């Protein structure tokens, strides 16, 4: 299971996404490879991902990609990340 976190540049929002996703996966007891890509290289990285996590703003810029996209509104809310990941992975 590979999860791709897509951010603007890799060191701000991307870090936050990855940290929250790691905590959420741990809480859910799910093992997954977590990769971070910035919007410029995300489409290529998406080719091998099962799921994408990003903000609604950047999701629009991704265009058509194969993996399901989970959009996060609040990057500092663990409950949001947990419930959205759980719902997405349950349907996977």
């Amino acid at each position, binding site marked *: 299971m590979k999860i791709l976190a897509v951010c603007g540049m890799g060191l701000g929002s991307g870090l*936050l996404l990855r940290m929250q996703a790691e905590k959420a996966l741990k809480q859910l007891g799910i093992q997954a490879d977590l990769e971070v890509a910035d919007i410029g290289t995300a489409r290529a990285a998406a080719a091998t991902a099962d799921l994408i996590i990003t903000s609604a703003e950047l999701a629009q810029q991704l265009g058509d990609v194969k993996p399901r996209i989970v959009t996060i509104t609040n*990057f500092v809310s663990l409950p949001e990340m947990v419930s959205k990941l759980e719902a997405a992975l349950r349907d996977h």
Partner: protein
Amino acid sequence: MAGPLSDLLPPAAVRIGAAAGDWREAVRIAGDALVASGATRDGYTDEMIRTVESLGPYIVIAPGVALAHARPSPAVLRAGISLVTLATPVPFGHRQNDPVRLVIGLAAPDDEGHVNALATLAEFLSDDDRRDALLRAADPGTVRSLIAAYEEAHDPATS
């Protein structure tokens, strides 16, 4: 050493009740605070603004909170964080998290030096009461005390 976040947020990097007419001014204030703290040169402020111009307002990462930053560049002298509370909330164009009341400036010379500080900041802001206390702070000393107290209470070494 007080904690990773306190270490990157000196008094010169905190502005309280700043007046900003639009998002560019708000980001500029956060950038000026980074310059004042010695973390960046002026050019970085322009880079932070250009980031939003080209990628959109995705930097509004939580309701009312913007994380202004740009890629590592020669304009970054060292890792640093600035914190600006706005007198009047400012829209950045984010559909869900507008308007912004707190602008955090982030300067990173590489992928790593700021990770602990950012993680601590995210934890700190994840609690609405803590975030509101920060927004109500009347001066930089109060902001830094709130953060220092939080870091002391959540020191991984002692908890």
